[in-house]
């Protein structure tokens, strides 16, 4: 069973425990009603933050299908999100793994306590992924990325896959749980390149024996 299918199966299984969906029984959960409630709940939101209370087209679809979109919706999402990916002008996709490691450790950025910013945004990769054997404090929401580059023989094609995935994971996995780091402006092209460096450099701790 694929991961996505397993997730859908799990949700269906447990919805049986939890009773039928409350939302489906109600008409009160239309988008207009939700947006009204959200605006009331965040009275301190600055005008330029109001867009944060509302997902874009892709997020609305993912929310609706609880991250398990039907094939056609998934195709639409993949096409739309692929189109947003931008590449470094010099075409070099593998950056500095040491900077990548720092970004992977840092969860700083975009929280309401992070203004005005005092340092660059982080990628917080370790929150969800294992990357190196040395860092024991890693999450398991995403797959382990230990030996990521080595397993992939450090190929250029795989470096592009890693770049795309970090820039916008929905391009290849519609409704992935991973943030769209590039598309949403969380990380810069330079930073994403450094994270690809962490994953794909032979000397990176990710790929150490």
């Amino acid at each position, binding site marked *: 069973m694929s991961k996505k299918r397993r997730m859908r199966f799990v949700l269906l299984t447990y919805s049986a425990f939890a009773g039928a969906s409350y939302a489906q029984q*109600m008409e009160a959960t239309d988008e207009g009603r939700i947006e009204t409630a959200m605006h009331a709940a965040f009275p301190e939101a600055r005008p330029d933050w109001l867009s944060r209370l509302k997902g874009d087209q892709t997020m609305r679809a993912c*929310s609706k299908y609880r991250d398990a979109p039907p094939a056609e919706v998934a195709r639409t999402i993949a096409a739309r999100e692929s189109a947003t990916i931008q590449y470094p002008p010099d075409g070099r996709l593998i950056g500095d793994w040491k900077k990548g490691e720092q970004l992977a450790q840092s969860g700083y950025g975009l929280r309401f306590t992070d203004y005005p910013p005092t340092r660059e945004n982080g990628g917080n990769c370790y929150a969800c992924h294992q990357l190196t054997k040395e860092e024991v404090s890693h999450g398991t*929401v995403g797959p382990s990325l230990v030996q990521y580059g080595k397993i992939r023989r450090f190929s250029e094609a795989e470096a592009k896959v890693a770049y795309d995935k970090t820039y916008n994971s929905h391009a290849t996995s519609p409704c992935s749980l991973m943030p769209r780091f590039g598309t949403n402006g969380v990380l810069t092209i330079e930073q994403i390149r450094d994270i690809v460096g962490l994953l794909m450099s032979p000397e990176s701790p990710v790929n150490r024996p």
Partner: protein
Amino acid sequence: MKNVRQKACAAAFVFASAFGGTGQAQQGGGDPIERELDTYRSMMKSDPWSNPGMLDVDRGEALWKTPAGPSNVSLDQCDLGLGPGKVDGAFATLPRYFVDADRVMDVEARILWCMEKLQGFDRVKLLTRPHPSAGMPVKVLGAIATYVAYRSNGRSFSATFSHPKEREALALGETLFFRRTGPMDFACSTCHADSGKRIRLQPLPFFSKPDEARKNLGEWPAYRVSTAHVMTMQHRIYDCFWQMRLPEVELGSDVSIALISYLVKQAEGGQINIPGMKR
């Protein structure tokens, strides 16, 4: 996992090696890091009396009973749903619809309402910085909520969600739980829709699974070691929204009450055992 945990002053004396470690063989399988973390967590919880959250239970009780505010009255006329002044078991029946306020309220929203309507406090002031910063104790409202919740210990979550507005809150809560927004595209379900996952080393409860929801909800309000104070459920949700890169959610908003309603419904029948002890 070490299992030498005698009473501090008991006659039995187990003598450890010069280097402190008991050197016992590990029991069972699994990740050694997770097993040692279990040792830490069980040591933290082994003596509930040592939980600093109990200090806020005491403080909350004194605050409930002491006249305060412009009206200089105590909260003994505050109706938490079981009648004025009835605290025992009230938390277990919340959230619920209150006719006088014409809305669904959780324990904190209801105490806020009583502090405003009975004691005469300014609602705006109560809602300004309602949660403690790291290292500072839980605020007055949170301490009272901790006391009220404590007085339902041993009981089960039994909110009925029978009133149409209660069902509406449940529906909104469920929808919001799966709704992805903000620059990180996070929903509650991003982290809480599967079993056995963790962020860094912290286990993530899967709220669609009743036993996980029950165990988790029954521990809030909880003392948090990382910030050295009691964190209430409204504060917990405020912090989740912070992490989701959303603005500051208002304590007692329909959104936070809806989410709490959804979580409490998932935890239906679960036993209340607060204050919990968390990282």
